[in-house]
């Protein structure tokens, strides 16, 4: 029942987001119907469009896990962005090495790229974790600072060391032998979606079927009670950050290993930007539950992929989807929207009932001297 209510709240938030988005579209001079039609039709009903939606969803599911696991442990890890950049950096470094060590131009290279990406991302996450546990630094501040620091470090590496000699705006592309297999020929969809869903399910298992996961959730709900029960909330905090770092690292490495046509990091990290923050939206819509995150990730993948079709066919700037995302998050922040909707509907029903009663009374009314205003009856 609780889960159903929470699912309903996400639906209400989605509707509110789309509705207000439609109002903004209208006032900006676009047709909301055309915009939304192009968005959803192309991203869901078209084979290649849906493949694109899944390709967009893959990293978002993982960054959603990053935030969701953090919330389950009672913290706000919004560092998926920077950890994602470091994940991509790891893969880009291995790609660069692969041209000097041909043994890496193979699935071995894929594994090495993922491994290095995950390690770098986890180290970044660990900094925030240690700062929180040791110095009590609020992770919202530390992770944002680390996001920006990571951005510039990766840019530095891209510009000075990892650049492609043929096209200096990107890093060296991953050699064909190490790339992730494409699931639908001529589309953007690669095995990244399998990695994402797989890791999400793994996280579900970790959180609900292991002792460590139980301790993590308990510490998140009440650190004092957890400590009283003999658990160490600090251990859970560190684990939550590391799991989040691994997830974001997988996302970033996956984008380099599995995203045609570049298979690299582009200038200004433009192909990676905002995937971390979108993960927060995904986690919130998915109620911070790994299974919810999978579905919410696909939904946001549809929105993001649909946004480019919306831009091409209806002329609406891409960023419209981000506006809708923001409204959805704000709507989700309002506690009990479903409850409010239900109360509003109940009140309206009661009001119409009262009005009917008044109208009914004006014909066979006797007694207390109350006159419905304006009614003419004797």
């Amino acid at each position, binding site marked *: 029942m609780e889960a159903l209510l929470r699912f309903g709240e996400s639906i209400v938030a989605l509707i509110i987001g789309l509705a207000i988005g439609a109002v903004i579209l209208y006032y900006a001079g676009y047709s909301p119907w055309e915009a939304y039609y192009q968005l959803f039709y192309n991203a869901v009903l078209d084979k290649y469009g849906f493949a694109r939606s899944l390709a967009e969803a893959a990293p978002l599911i993982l960054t959603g896990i990053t935030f969701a696991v953090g919330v389950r442990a009672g913290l706000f890890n*919004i560092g998926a962005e920077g950890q994602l950049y470091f994940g991509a950096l790891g893969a880009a470094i291995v790609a660069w090495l692969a041209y000097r060590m041909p043994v890496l131009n193979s699935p071995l290279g894929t594994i090495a790229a993922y491994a290095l990406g995950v390690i770098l991302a986890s180290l970044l996450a660990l900094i925030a974790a240690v700062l929180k546990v040791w110095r009590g630094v609020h992770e919202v501040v530390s992770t944002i600072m680390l996001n920006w620091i990571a951005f510039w*470090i990766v840019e530095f590496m891209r510009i000075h060391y990892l650049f492609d000699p043929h096209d200096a705006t990107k890093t060296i592309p991953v050699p064909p032998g190490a790339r992730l297999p494409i699931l639908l020929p001529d589309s953007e969809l690669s095995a990244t979606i399998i990695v994402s869903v797989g890791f999400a399910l793994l996280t579900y298992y970790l959180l609900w079927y292991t002792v460590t996961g139980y301790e993590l959730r308990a510490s998140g709900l009440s650190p004092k009670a957890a400590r009283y029960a003999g658990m160490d909330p600090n251990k859970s905090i560190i684990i939550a950050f590391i799991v989040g770092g691994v997830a974001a690292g997988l996302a970033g490495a996956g984008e380099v290993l599995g995203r045609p046509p570049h298979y690299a990091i582009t200038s200004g990290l433009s192909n990676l930007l905002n995937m971390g923050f979108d993960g927060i939206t995904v986690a919130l819509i998915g109620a911070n539950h790994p299974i919810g995150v999978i579905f919410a990730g696909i939904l946001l993948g549809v929105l993001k992929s649909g946004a480019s079709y919306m831009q091409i066919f209806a002329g609406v700037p891409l960023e419209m989807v981000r506006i809708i995302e923001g409204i959805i998050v*704000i709507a989700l922040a309002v506690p009990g929207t479903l409850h409010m909707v239900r109360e509003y509907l109940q009140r309206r029903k009661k009001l119409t009932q009262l009005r009917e009663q008044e109208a009914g009374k004006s014909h066979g009314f006797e007694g207390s001297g109350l006159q419905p205003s304006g009614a003419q009856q004797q």
Partner: protein
Amino acid sequence: MAAPSGSLLFAIGVLNAMTPILLTAIGEILAERAGVVNIGLEGIIMLGAMTGVMAAEAAGPWVGLLAGLLTGAALGLLHAVITAYLKGDHIIPGIGINTLALGLVPFMLIVHWHSAGQHQVPSYARVPDIAGYISPVSLTAIALSVIMWYILFRTPWGLVVRSVGENPEAADTVGIHVERVQAIAVVIGASLAGLAGAFMSLDWLGTLTKEIAAGRGFIALALVVFSNWDPLQALGGAALFGFFDTLSIWVKNTTLKQVVPSSLINTLPYVVTLIAVAGVLGRVRPPKHVGVPYKRE
């Protein structure tokens, strides 16, 4: 007036760099003293910058600054309704506002100004600086830090605000309208952040870009902690951050550029913030109920 020397220009640069952070931090100190955390400062700065330019191009720079202020107030009201009145989580609406701003600013850049990345603010819309260099907004910010200190620590209303943040139950019992105090504090705080954004676009930088805030909302949050929730201490902290912010720009123009690449220099303000916040924790004392929605039993 003769052209100012290099070091004077640097000092003015620091003054400009510290103004948005200082304004936002002063506002957030008020809000957090009342017990409410506003993570959406980043988004409010961006939206204040945007509406500031829109209004200034229509009716001049002062109207622009006012528009930024009012935008902040409106967003603050939204945040206050969700957190103080509806007892929602303090962090999530802020994330929503930030996401919304990240979408709305580039969207409007395209729709309103037909420019994909940035928009140069025309000179008639820019805030006139005193003697051409010192911004009246900067001086206002410094004055505000003193005024806010006075309000918080020397007036009855300041005591009301602080009591709400320390112990809302007791304040409620005494008859203080907790939600209203929190709402007022948040609205004022957010207005200052909106003003900070308008200052950035209309005064200091003279352009509106997609990423105009560049983390300053979060640096302001760090500054609130670093200054121990005291507006006067915020003055010193903001100057420190402004110093490193300006330094990173200046180093790029010197021979040091050969040694240290600019992308790494760009990390400087964020690294300094991180070290400052990490270094000072344990010696600062937050308001006891900050960030906790007040629910009556």
